[in-house]
């Protein structure tokens, strides 16, 4: 049994990798993300207020840095930027719009922006071999690239080392910002600035000298892909830019509600479905069976959002009834009540949502239970049991039902994704602060980290659910041995 479990757990790893890969592809494909290309630098020239320009450009850059959007997707080859490439890019970024086209100009600017610190050596080198005007353009980008943004992930406490590092960066940035010259500055000033930059670069040269191994490491890790996986392995799903909190904390808050609702509704569905299935299979094709089957068929086809809306309208508004609350899973002052009252309060709140979540699964399960029982009830061992003179209830419950219910148990793995998916709708209708509602809110707020984190967690949860149902099957059916 334990070997089987270990094997199953190991098999989950490629599936999890596949899931994360799909999420990553979706994230990269997402057009129009906040801080996406085209939004970063394009409009900055359009505004007239230079201070505003700067702050807007900087905040965009910060945002892109935080979410690693300014890095290449798969491979980072910026550790060895060719001088000529950098030179032509700088020239294109500064060229006339008519000469190179607005698109090429914008792309060149964005490329320089993204290179950032990686472009410093190349920029310093080409500074030597250029004259006058071009020099000032290169110097502009050198100042830009040499500035390191102290990234502060909001909603998190920084450790001391990061704080110290950020302070050092800020100090250096302030120093570097002074080293520029205006177009009509005297040549003496120019030479002075240039020597300052060269001196600084010579002193800090080691920052850009990577060994082959380090280059490979940067190439693989300092990319969108690498950052994503690195964060995943640390169970870091990023930060919600709406809630200003880590996504994991947000989700952890919501998981208990959604999972306990789903678990409860599965429990209720099984408790009702199995007796119903047995009852209608014991007397197949009689009137009772037909009524139950037809009723279940219609229940199965009833959309949950329709039933939910009807229940909400009928029982919560006070026209005609006002029996249940219309939102949340517990009352406002619930925390002050004692345990017993709290329990009553929660039950009062979740009755309607549970009904909506349960009936669909109930219908599917009891149809399965019926077919499972029908398959078994005609088999030889049941006839033998009858022939032995066992009572009808013993035959049905102890001999037939235990075997007939096997397929129903395996169905758990199939019901679970549907149930968790359905919880979105139930939480939306009854305004329950679970994972589903979080997803909808995140989509409406374009809070992609939350959306993707949710998808990952939900898929992982489903995977665990399927595992549980498989293990359950192994435990229940002694004929199957997992060696």
């Amino acid at each position: 049994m334990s070997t089987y479990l270990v094997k199953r757990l190991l098999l989950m790893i490629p599936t999890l990798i596949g899931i994360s890969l799909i999420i990553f592809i979706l994230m990269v494909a997402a057009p129009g993300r906040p801080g996406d290309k085209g939004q970063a630098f394009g409009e900055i020239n359009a505004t007239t207020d230079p201070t505003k320009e700067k702050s807007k450009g900087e905040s965009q850059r910060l945002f892109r840095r935080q979410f690693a959007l300014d890095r290449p997707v798969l491979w980072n080859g910026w550790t060895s930027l060719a001088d000529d490439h950098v030179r032509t890019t700088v020239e294109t970024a500064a060229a006339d719009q008519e000469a190179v086209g607005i698109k090429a100009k914008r792309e060149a600017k964005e490329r320089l922006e993204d290179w950032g610190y990686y472009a410093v050596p190349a920029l310093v080198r080409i500074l030597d071999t250029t004259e006058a005007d071009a020099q000032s353009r290169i110097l502009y980008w050198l100042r830009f690239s040499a500035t390191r943004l102290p990234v502060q992930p909001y909603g998190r406490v920084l450790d001391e080392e990061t704080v110290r590092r950020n302070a050092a960066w800020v100090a250096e940035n302030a120093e570097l910002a002074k080293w520029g010259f205006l177009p009509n500055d005297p040549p003496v000033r120019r030479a002075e600035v240039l020597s300052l930059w060269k001196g600084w670069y010579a002193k800090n040269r080691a920052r850009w000298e990577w060994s082959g191994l380090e280059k490979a490491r940067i190439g693989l890790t300092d990319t969108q892909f690498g950052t994503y996986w690195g964060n995943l392995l640390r169970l870091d799903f990023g930060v919600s830019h709406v809630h200003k909190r880590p996504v994991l904390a947000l989700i952890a808050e919501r998981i208990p509600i959604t999972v306990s609702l789903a678990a409860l509704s599965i429990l209720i569905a099984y408790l009702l479905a199995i007796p119903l299935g047995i009852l209608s299979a014991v007397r197949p094709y009689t009137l009772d069976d037909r009524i139950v089957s037809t009723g279940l068929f219609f229940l199965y086809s009833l959309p949950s959002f329709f039933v939910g809306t009807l229940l909400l309208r009928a029982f919560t508004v006070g026209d005609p009834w006002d029996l249940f609350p219309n939102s949340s899973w517990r009352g406002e002052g619930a925390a002050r009540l004692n345990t017993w009252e709290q329990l009553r309060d929660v039950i009062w709140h979740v009755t309607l949502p549970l009904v909506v979540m349960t009936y669909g699964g109930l219908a599917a399960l009891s149809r399965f239970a019926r077919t499972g029982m029908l398959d078994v009830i005609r088999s030889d061992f049941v006839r033998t049991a009858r022939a032995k003179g066992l009572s009808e209830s013993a035959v049905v419950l102890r001999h037939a039902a235990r075997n007939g219910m096997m397929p129903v148990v395996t169905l758990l793995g199939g019901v679970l994704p549907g149930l968790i998916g359905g919880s979105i709708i139930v939480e939306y209708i009854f305004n329950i602060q679970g994972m589903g509602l979080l997803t909808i809110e995140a989509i409406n707020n374009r809070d992609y980290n939350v959306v993707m984190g949710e998808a990952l967690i939900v898929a992982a949860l489903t995977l665990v659910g399927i595992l549980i149902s498989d293990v359950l099957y192994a435990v229940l059916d002694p004929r199957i041995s997992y060696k």
Partner: protein
Amino acid sequence: MRSDGALRPSRPADATASYWNVVWAQLRKNRIAMFALGCVRLLLLIAICAPALAFNVPFVMRASSAWSAPILDLLFDRFVFPGGVDVFFNLILLVLPVWWGAARLGRGLRPADEAVRGPAFVAAAIVTGLALVYLLFGALTGATLVARLLGAVVVPGALALAISAARPRAVRGGALARARWVCLLLFLVGFGLLMGPWKETSPLVDYRARVRALEATSDGFAVFPFVPYHPDNVGELGSSTTGRSLKRPDGENLLGCDLNGRDVGARLLFGTRISMTIGLVAVSIFIAIGILLGSLAGYYQGWVDLAIMRLVEVMICFPTLFLLLTIIAIFESRSIFLIMFVIGLVGWPGVSRLVRGEFLRQRNLDYVTAAKSQGLPERRIIFGHVLPNCMGPVLVSATFGIASSILTESGLAFLGLGDTTAASWGQMLNAGRSEGQWHLIFAPGLAIFFVVTTFNLLGEGLRDALDPKLRR
């Protein structure tokens, strides 16, 4: 669907009846499934004829002793029907009568008249086409030049389709076949013209108000569709629609009106179009993907199978709605076609599992070995020989898939994440939820329930018909 295939008397006994003939004969015995099939046909008919059932423009009207048929002009108006789905169905509405009539005509010809058939159809096509062009557009005083041109292109194209629908076997070779393709091309060009941005639009008129005014003063006369309202109230003044806001059902608006004064009945009828398109398109996409991947996995096995099955496992772990939401979240604007595409993209794992299983059963059978030994290309073995034998279960899952796709789309629209411009039932239900009005909840809710039940019943019937154990 050719309903008379299995029962044609000229066929010898059941021994030579094909697999699908047997299945069809089985299905015919199932009264509930046949009822469901009838309902499906009815739904399709409603979807196609929606503007003939609900439209705030009259079929014919007489104003100051001049007759006109405004409905024909406005059927392809960019402001009256801005959505691609509506344009498509309106085109079918225009083509359907011709198509159907030609098909009837074709069946009337005896098999002995083989020599007559070709020329007869060409003549019929030309005559009917000319007549229709004259009838539809030439006689209309208000018809623009573009509309006339369109009439000249669309109607012959429709006829060509009608011919091929009528006798697909008779026109399979020779000059007639080429003529059919030319006509089809013309038809597509016509369709492109219809969709084209240079279609002139007439100024929007509130025909109901105009007819009322005419009736009061002179001998004005108009025949409106059964529900004389447009699903989006196009052409009506805001002042006249606000008065109908949240109106309860009465004699005038049989199912009441929503918050914006739009008639629920009209929206319901036009919602059929959305649901049917969603069902058919999304299912076609996921069946195509599922068949392709499943057959590759089942036929080649080995690492291909391993890779595809891992992908299936990954896809199954995502609850459908969550994955859909995640994909849809990244799109700025959500058109109904995007929703269809995404639903199709998400639904395939079940189908590919099914097809793979069937392939695993079939691939070692003698006929496959025979095909291989003849040196047939693998493409032909997979798609020409093995696949047709696996289509039974696929058909069943496609039928259930239509139901679940419609349900999924309604769910998305209910959450406010669908196409907000389309008259989708789910969106109507969501409006009913937020307004708390019974008539706004029941109408779309029951419509969704009815469609889903219909397709589920049909799916069950098909499953029983395909099951050899249940064969009677």
